[in-house]
């Protein structure tokens, strides 16, 4: 943390949430918070903070736990005129803020294209896209894998699933980063303004995509969402735009970052890389272990619709709970030797995709893409090594992802 010894635990929590510098190596802080105050209430941030695996599990599956309680104060999402800021307008249209039947309505739609069975049928195509990309990268001999490798497959696949061209991919990456940067505990007006501009640009762009797709319907997820919107009360306009933006964004940022994290862990634990090279079918397990050890979603909020007891504390109706996912993955009560990256770990539990009704819609797609990419990292880049020991992490609170991963091979 680098904070003076006199600071309280509460100050350190505020520091972690608000200062990207504090999040470079957060694990000692997580251990301390989990030991000293596992169900922490932070007066300044007005949120509960949960760090144990078992408590995270309880919250995710808890019946009074929701995303959008009736009496939740959304004033921090509003501008001077009392309107939702563009970043929040876009965010609130996603299923992330839905509960109950509203959530199921969206899940039913999305699973028609993103369900486990449907995703399995994309495997051959994903492998083909990846192979072509690896061919291009492998000749370089040296590259930043974040810039050159990890986002290519997720971006190509999510664009195919939505039936939209990849020509705007650089915009998608930038808009997503700016949007995601502005939605959690952000008070910096510059970051907010950038986020708002990105949200507006994203909304406008999706408006154009929808217009075009309406005239050229096909089997894609976007066509399906448009049909749901046009055929009655299955999808609202704002949901159509928000779901598209959210999946085009989350569909590459989180999966790409996950593969970056897996690669870093494998490079820092050469005996694990050796195990994977010996039997590349372990890639699936390496991905699950990365989801526990250093998943790419940093935290996720929940709210309680009625008073909720957790580890002897009463969480009052309307209160926010932030679950720190990487902290839960390192819980010593649940995981033996939690700070060890161990791809053959017998337990495959983790909260990397959350649990409960909001379990990640894209989990099976992310797993497929990550498995293929981690296999490629282990088998297609001989003598892969980092060119620097220092790594820096993105300043975005919601994402655990590397800014760069400079490597060489050959």
């Amino acid at each position, binding site marked *: 943390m680098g904070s003076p010894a006199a600071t309280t635990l509460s100050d350190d929590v505020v520091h972690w949430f608000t200062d990207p510098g504090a999040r470079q190596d957060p694990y000692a802080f997580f251990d301390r918070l989990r030991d000293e105050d596992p169900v922490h209430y932070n007066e300044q941030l007005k949120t509960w903070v949960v760090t144990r695996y078992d408590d995270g599990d309880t919250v995710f599956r808890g019946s009074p736990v929701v995303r959008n309680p009736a009496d939740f104060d959304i004033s921090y999402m509003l501008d001077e005129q009392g309107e939702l800021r563009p970043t929040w307008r876009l965010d609130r249209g996603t299923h992330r803020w839905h509960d109950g039947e509203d959530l199921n309505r969206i899940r039913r739609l999305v699973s028609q294209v993103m369900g486990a069975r449907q995703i399995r049928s994309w495997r051959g195509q994903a492998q083909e896209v990846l192979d072509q990309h690896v061919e291009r990268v492998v000749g370089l001999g040296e590259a930043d894998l974040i810039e050159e490798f990890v986002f290519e497959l997720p971006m190509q696949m999510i664009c195919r699933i939505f039936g939209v061209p990849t020509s705007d991919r650089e915009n998608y990456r930038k808009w997503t980063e700016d949007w995601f940067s502005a939605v959690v505990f952000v008070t910096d007006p510059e970051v907010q303004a950038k986020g708002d501009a990105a949200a507006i640009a994203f909304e406008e762009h999706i408006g154009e995509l929808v217009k075009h797709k309406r005239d050229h319907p096909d089997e894609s997820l976007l066509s399906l969402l448009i049909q749901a919107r046009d055929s009655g009360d299955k999808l609202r306009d704002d949901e159509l735009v928000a779901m598209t933006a959210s999946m085009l964004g989350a569909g590459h940022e989180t999966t790409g970052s996950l593969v970056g994290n897996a690669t870093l862990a494998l490079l820092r634990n050469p005996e694990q890389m050796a195990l994977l090279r010996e039997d590349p079918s372990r890639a699936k397990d390496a991905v699950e272990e990365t989801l526990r050890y250093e998943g790419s979603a940093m935290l996720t909020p929940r709210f309680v619709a009625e008073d909720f007891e957790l580890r002897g504390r009463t969480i009052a109706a309307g209160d926010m709970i932030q679950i720190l996912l990487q902290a839960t993955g390192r819980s010593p009560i649940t995981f033996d030797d939690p700070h060890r990256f161990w791809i053959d770990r017998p337990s495959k539990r983790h909260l990397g995709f959350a649990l409960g009704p909001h379990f990640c819609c894209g989990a099976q797609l992310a*797993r497929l893409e990550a498995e293929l990419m981690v296999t490629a990292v282990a088998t297609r880049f001989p003598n892969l090594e980092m060119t620097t020991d220092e790594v820096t992490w993105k300043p975005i609170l919601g994402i655990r992802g590397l800014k760069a991963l400079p490597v060489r091979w050959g």
Partner: protein
Amino acid sequence: MAGPDAQRIVVDRALCIGTGNCVFYAERTFDIDGSNKATVVDPDGDAIVDQRMAVENCPTGALSFAREEPTA
């Protein structure tokens, strides 16, 4: 293999939201049906350890083991 201690996997279709997580952990045992609900296609499709992983990691707690009734 079904033996004296064989356990049957039960899907609570009211709780299942079709995340496909069980198919990931035990792909020969489970599938997702046309109503987007998990279904057991082969009770002996995977090792018991994988089936247990699927049951324990069901995001909505829709899966459980029930002891098989002894046949005659």
